[in-house]
């Protein structure tokens, strides 16, 4: 316990970590999370590479509103487009927006948070002011306002979502840096004459990996939900590209006679979010020593 915590014996620490990983992903919920995400990422890749049995954008009025069958697995919509291909391509779009927005907000937010926590003083106060301002907007409202004012594309949606999560990453990074700043090995590194920046890069940042991996996974699931909500409201990924939120919106009027139009995009969305949430929980118990199992 104490050896793994202080990191005195790298071998023992690695063994402890391996045990924690097994414990986290050996649980039913952790395993289900991995399984769902393999499914979602697999489908998204298939769509991104254009390998779906039918083209998600191809219209064929003679095949409009067919129910699910061996021919069209998830049925077809009013334009005869294949719902399976569109759900897969919608998942690809969700994943793309989620990954880009989380990467961007992670990069900016982390830099901000780490600098604020490590240098303190004026830097900290300015960063705190900025995060307070961004936090004063309810998150969906902020993303909506930004997405609505920019030209509609998947990239601007990603930017809008990224802005919302910058303060969250900044706050998540600042806390551990504050407590690590006075950790003995950090003080020691400075005492032997290392500059503040090299101490930061070499000793402080690597010790935050756990909390960041967890935060990233959970942010991905929020980003997917936010993108879907924006698309539903008409401010997200623009048609004709398939987006899960847009598909649910389009299904509103037709869901009575063609429930598959609502059911399958809905399931796709929920599966992606549930998968990421389960994965995040499993990662938390594996990587965050404070979580301590269940």
């Amino acid at each position, binding site marked *: 316990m104490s050896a793994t915590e202080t990191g005195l014996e790298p071998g023992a620490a690695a063994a402890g970590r391996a045990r924690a990983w097994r414990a986290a992903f050996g649980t039913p919920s952790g395993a289900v999370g991995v399984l769902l995400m393999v499914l979602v990422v697999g489908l998204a890749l298939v769509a991104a590479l254009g390998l779906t049995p039918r083209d998600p954008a191809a219209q064929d009025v003679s095949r409009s509103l067919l129910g699910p069958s061996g021919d069209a697995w998830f049925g077809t919509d009013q334009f005869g487009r294949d719902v399976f291909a569109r759900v897969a391509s919608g998942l690809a779009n969700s994943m793309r927006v989620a990954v880009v927005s989380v990467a961007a907000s992670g990069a900016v937010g982390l830099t901000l948070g780490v600098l604020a926590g490590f240098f303190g003083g004026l830097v900290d106060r300015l960063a705190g002011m900025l995060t307070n301002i961004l936090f004063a907007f309810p998150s969906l409202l902020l993303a909506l306002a930004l997405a609505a004012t920019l030209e509609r594309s998947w990239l601007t949606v990603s930017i809008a979502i990224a802005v919302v999560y910058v303060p969250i990453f900044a706050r998540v990074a600042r806390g551990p840096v504050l407590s690590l700043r006075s950790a003995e090995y950090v003080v020691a590194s400075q005492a032997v004459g290392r500059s503040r920046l090299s101490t930061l890069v070499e000793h402080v940042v690597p010790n935050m990996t756990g909390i960041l991996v967890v935060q990233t996974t959970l942010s991905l699931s929020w980003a997917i939900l936010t993108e*879907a909500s924006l698309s539903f409201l008409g401010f997200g990924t623009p048609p004709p590209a398939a987006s899960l939120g847009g598909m649910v919106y389009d299904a509103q009027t037709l869901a009575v006679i063609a429930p598959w139009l609502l059911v399958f995009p809905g399931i796709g*969305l929920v599966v992606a979010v549930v998968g990421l949430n389960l994965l995040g929980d499993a990662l938390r118990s594996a990587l965050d020593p404070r979580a301590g199992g269940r």
Partner: protein
Amino acid sequence: MTRLRAALSRPLVRRLAEAVVTLVGVSLLTFVVLRVVPGDQITASYGIAAGELSPDQIRSLEAYYGIDRPWPVQYLGWLGGVLSGNLGLSTASGTSVAALTAQALPNTVELAVLAIVVGLLLGIPGGMLAASRPGRARDGATQLGSLLSLSVPSFLLATALATFLANQLGWYPNGEGYRTLLEDPWLNLQQMALPALVLGVSIASPVLQTTRTAILGVRSEDFVRTARAKGVPPRLLQVRHVLRNALIPVVTMTGLQFGFLLSGALVAEQIFAVPGIGRQVLLGLQQKEYAVVQSTVLVIAVMFVLVNLLTDLVYRLVDPRVRAR
């Protein structure tokens, strides 16, 4: 009285000052974002025809909308108006934003309060159930429910409910024109039922998790063991000693959810045609009505910041440990 004075001590004054700085930042940010992007009220209200306007016409329209003046003048003019209660004018509807907001805000607040009631009714018993046998079947079942409520977006649940209830049961009160609580209480409550349910479900999960963690934490404290040793009956122990103390973090969580509800309400308001403040923002964004978006967003941010401040105050009042600090 001394309680109140202690609560109002220095940290609170600092938080108030912070809140003011934050709100000024919010107003600046909204102002700038709306102006750096292409397209303005003229293109929004005239569409493609805006291209055929003569330079003179454009100038006079700009003067009419007040967007011909330099930015700092526009900002200060708007801010000065806001501080004296004038939130600007909605040019599309010809009414003042203050009047629009005065109509819309009560609807959103009613919806948020009902949603919180639903969320607490689902979350607190759920959390108690989960905490009663941690790690066992009923814990797992509530955790699963909690995970689903976290993962099903409100717009999906709302669309599914609206479609199913309207068509299978023929019950869709939101199809008729909206009635406020004062106009027609019975119809209003029916119209609020579905959006409040949808929003309540979306906040039930954090309430449930907080309740569960808090109960498990309180239960292992010394005073609970002491009370049990003194022979306090189990049921009374659960309510008087455990639940009462466990609810303190739940209060904070509920306060934080209020802000989430203001933006979550936007989706529910849109789907169930509730003329609330979220819909007002959405409409303003679609019509590029600067004054409407700017002022409404500021109103929402003010409420958000105030609720967070209030949550902090209540927390200080109910938890003596925080007060002492």
